[in-house]
């Protein structure tokens, strides 16, 4: 199991602590990490409710989503670059994500194995 549901409290506490530390001490790397984990990991909990094959498919998609989001945040980091490319990258992320993530969900849900009993 990639991230079983009994790890849910560990993840939640980790995200909460990272978020609080990052904002109190103005450590943006921690805040950014908490934002990415907080957004992506709850979806990983749901993997515990699906079969192995489905979990692998979903995990790949979500890992890719998390990686793109994290890379996006890291790319913005030093010196606040600004410029047209950032805006275009954001539009690209919105467009591709809006198509890919719901499709990822539809790939398994209702196909007979998920949501499981």
């Amino acid at each position, binding site marked *: 199991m990639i991230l079983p549901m009994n790890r849910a409290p560990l993840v939640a506490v980790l995200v909460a602590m990272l*978020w609080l530390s990052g904002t109190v001490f103005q450590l943006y790397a921690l805040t950014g990490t908490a934002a990415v984990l907080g957004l992506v990991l709850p979806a990983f909990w749901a993997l515990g409710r699906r079969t192995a094959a489905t979990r692998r498919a979903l995990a790949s998609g979500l890992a890719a989503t998390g990686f793109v989001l994290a890379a996006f945040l890291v790319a913005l980091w030093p010196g606040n670059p600004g410029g047209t490319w950032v805006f275009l990258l954001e539009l690209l992320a919105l467009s591709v994500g809006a198509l890919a993530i719901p499709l990822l969900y539809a790939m398994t849900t209702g196909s007979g194995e998920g949501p499981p009993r």
Partner: protein
Amino acid sequence: VTLGVLLLLAATLLGVWGFVHARDATGFFAASRRAGPILAGLGGTAAGLSAFVFIGGPGLFGSIGIASLWIILSAPLTGALQCWAVGEPVVRLARLRSTLTVPGILAARYGEGAPRGLAAVAVIAGGIAMLAVQVKGVAVAGDVLLGEKGWLMALALLGGTTLYTTAGGMRAGLLAEGFQGLLMAGAALILASVVLAKAGGPAAALNTIHELRPALLDPWNAVGPSTALAWLLLFGLGTCAQPHYLQKFLLVRDEKALRWMPMVMTGGLLAVLTVWIGFGLGGTALMARGALEISSPEQLAPALLLGLSPALLLLATAAVAAAVMSTAATLLNLVAAAFSRDLPLAAGHAPGESLALPRLATLGAAGAAMALAAGSGRSVALLGILGWGTFTAALLPAILLGLNWRGASRRGAVGAMIGGPAIQLLLEGLHRAGMATGLEPGLTGAAMGTLILVGLSRAKTAGGTGLGQETEAAG
């Protein structure tokens, strides 16, 4: 006047239809659980988006540029995230326990009494505050669109919504929301295209901003990373705790309906958000070139709307009205359910079968919201903090963790539902005093609530109905 008459006629017809079809509590609060993915998805998107997207969003773009997009960057993920993390367990719980309301989800998970009661109080306080903000917002927008007749527009919209929601509950409300969601999406696409065309197209608009106002293309801008990242998380993860989103999972006909729901929700959401980007980009470019003269960026959307043809202005007015009415209908029903069903159940009294009290409570919620909105702007702003942030602080840990971790206990959930909003309100007070401004109140409340929930649950408490056990028992 024509719009007002049409609105009244449509609201009356819908109200009559809803009155005939919503014969019991399931019909009134859960639209008889007949919604498929398209209706539930469009309804969820329409209820979740307010007039802020049409008026406030472009203004924010004009003020801080692409840093404003941190609010909407999580949009592709939120639909699927809601279904994965809370939608599937909520649909199952709703079937197992005949749950009709959002506080009922917490009662089904943690047991009756305090969990349901605390959630009901949060829904009533936050719901009325959010309703008041809608009314106030439409009054301001109406002044621009109709010329000093904003309060009349607010009264007409809230009155029409109250009419069909009181008569037909969510049976009528969901049908209206489906239509309103389509209208908002279509209008947003048309309006955004028109404004971008006026600015010479997206590329020309972007070049203008790059040359004349490059600071607006800074991804953080004056907002700073701390607030920007807080927006990303608050509007991403926070969707899992908003009662007006959660309610839609109580209305769907079965689990299979969830399959295409994220596609509908996300498609609708992105279509409506084009107005944020289109108005923001096009309007800011026109402003930078001196083709649009406004005294503050907040006037960006109103100024652009006034420059449209009468037909497009009518379309924009209809879209703003749809945004307000859809949000108001869901909030009215949520508050009525919390007052007439959840508070009595939390106190140990079974609610009767009659729909008289829910209908009276709907009228009461509308009256309370109108009175609050008609008061000073300051009091609305103060109570506005009981909106999105309060729902996140009060409900996110108990809902998200409770539905995914069977170890979450009743004591932990109650502690989180008290501690989270208490910390949020304390921080809001400190913010007003100019202190602790780096801490986003709703998120900090939710983070502390999470620590409280896990801490108290780990302290070996009894109570709490395991979701897994319930599911096994049903299987």
